[in-house]
C-alpha cells in the first residue's frame, strides 16, 4: 500500500460500515494520483454527513421536523443540566443558611430532571408522544423549581423547558420518526452544566470564565458544522434563543434600559443566534446535492 493510499484509506474508514468503503477508496485513487486537500475535505464531510444522518434526502418539511427534533434534544440537555445544578446541593452556604424551602426546591428540581431525561430518551428513540407528555409535564415542575430564585423566566436556562415542550408538541405531527442512541444526549448533560449558561458560576467559580470561552467555541463549531449538516446550527441557535428570551424579558419586566449598555448586551446575545440561522439557511440553499 502506497503512502497516498494509506492516507486516503484512513479517511475512508471514517465512513460507517454500511457505505462501500473499498469502492470509495478505489474511486478516489483512480481520480487522484496524489493526496489532495479538496478530496480529503470532501471525504471527511461525506463521512460526517453519513455518521450524523445528514446524508438522508429530506423534503423541506422533513428537514424542518428533523431540525426541530435536534433542537428539542439540545434544549432538553440544557434544561436537564439546569435541573442537575438545582437538585444537587452545590450551594453549600445557601443550604446551611437557608431557613426553609431549599430542600423542597431541590426535590422539585429532581422531579424536573427525571421528566426532562424521560423526554430526552423518548425523543431520541422516536417515542414522540411520551416525549411530549414528559416535556409538557416538566414545564410547571421546572417553573416551580426556578421560583427558588424569584422570577423564573428571568433565570438562566429557564426558557429551555418551554421551548423544548413546544418543539416536542410540534414533533407529534412529524410524518417520520427518527431514532438514535440516547447515550450521546445523556452524556452531554454533564459538560452542559459548565459549558452552557446555567448559572453554575454562582457555585462553581471557574464556570463564568469557561462559559464565555465555550459559548464562543460552540458558535464557531456550529457555524463550521453548517457545511456538513444545516440542522446543527439551528439546534445551537435554539439554545441561544433561551438567553435572548431571558434578556428581553428581564428588560421588559424591569422596564430598565440603562445607558445603552443593556441594549448592546442584548444585541450581542442575539447576534450568534442570527448568525447560526443565517448559516443554516445558506448551507441548505448552497448544498451541492
Amino acid at each position, binding site marked *: 500500500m502506497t503512502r497516498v493510499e494509506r492516507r486516503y484509506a484512513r479517511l475512508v474508514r471514517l465512513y460507517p460500515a454500511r457505505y462501500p468503503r473499498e469502492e470509495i477508496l*478505489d474511486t478516489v485513487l483512480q481520480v487522484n494520483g496524489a493526496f489532495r486537500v479538496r478530496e480529503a475535505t470532501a471525504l471527511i464531510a461525506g463521512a460526517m454527513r453519513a455518521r450524523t444522518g445528514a446524508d438522508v434526502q429530506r423534503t423541506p418539511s422533513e428537514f424542518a421536523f428533523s431540525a426541530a427534533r435536534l433542537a428539542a434534544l439540545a434544549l432538553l440537555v440544557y434544561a436537564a443540566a439546569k435541573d442537575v445544578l438545582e437538585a444537587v446541593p452545590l450551594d453549600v452556604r445557601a443550604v446551611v443558611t437557608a431557613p426553609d424551602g431549599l430542600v423542597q426546591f431541590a426535590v422539585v428540581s429532581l422531579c424536573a430532571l427525571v421528566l426532562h431525561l424521560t423526554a430526552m430518551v423518548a425523543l431520541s428513540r422516536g417515542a414522540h408522544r411520551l416525549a411530549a407528555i414528559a416535556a409538557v409535564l416538566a414545564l410547571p415542575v421546572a417553573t416551580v423549581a426556578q421560583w427558588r430564585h424569584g422570577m423564573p423566566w428571568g433565570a438562566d436556562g429557564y426558557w429551555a423547558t418551554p421551548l423544548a415542550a413546544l418543539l416536542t408538541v410540534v414533533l407529534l405531527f412529524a410524518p417520520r420518526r427518527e431514532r438514535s442512541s440516547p447515550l450521546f444526549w445523556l452524556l452531554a448533560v454533564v459538560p452542559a452544566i459548565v459549558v452552557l449558561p446555567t448559572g453554575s458560576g454562582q457555585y462553581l467559580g471557574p464556570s463564568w470564565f469557561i462559559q464565555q470561552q465555550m459559548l464562543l467555541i460552540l458558535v464557531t463549531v456550529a457555524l463550521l458544522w453548517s457545511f456538513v449538516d444545516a440542522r446543527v446550527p439551528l439546534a445551537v441557535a435554539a439554545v441561544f434563543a433561551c438567553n435572548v428570551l431571558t434578556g428581553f424579558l428581564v428588560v421588559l419586566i424591569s422596564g430598565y434600559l440603562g445607558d445603552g449598555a443593556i441594549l448592546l448586551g442584548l444585541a450581542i446575545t442575539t447576534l450568534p443566534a442570527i448568525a447560526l440561522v443565517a448559516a443554516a439557511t445558506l448551507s441548505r440553499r448552497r448544498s451541492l446535492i
Partner: protein
Amino acid sequence: MRETTYFILAALQDGPLHGYAIIQRASELSTGRIRLATGTLYTALERLTGTGLIRVVDEQIVNGRARRSYELTPTGGAALKDHAEQLAAAARVVTERRVTRTVVRPA
C-alpha cells in the same frame, strides 16, 4: 433537483457506470463545470439509491476491491426527463423571445 444531481443522473442515461466513470462522464457532459469530489459523489449516490432514482446493478472485484455499477431506475429516468424539460422550457423563455416594440406616436 441540484445541478450536481442532474449531471450524475444524466451521466447514467446511456447505461450503468461505476463511481470513477460517473465523475468523468458528469464532467464531460457539463463541459468541465461539474468536478465531483469522491466524497460528494458517494453522498449523492447514497441519497439517490435511497430515493429509488438509481440502483446498484453489478458488482465486480477489480484489483482486490469491490467496484459497483449504478444505473438509472425508471423513476430516475422520468425525474431526469422532467427536470430536463423544465430547464428547456426555462431556456426557451430567453432563446425564443419575441421582441415586441410599442411605437408611441406624437398626438
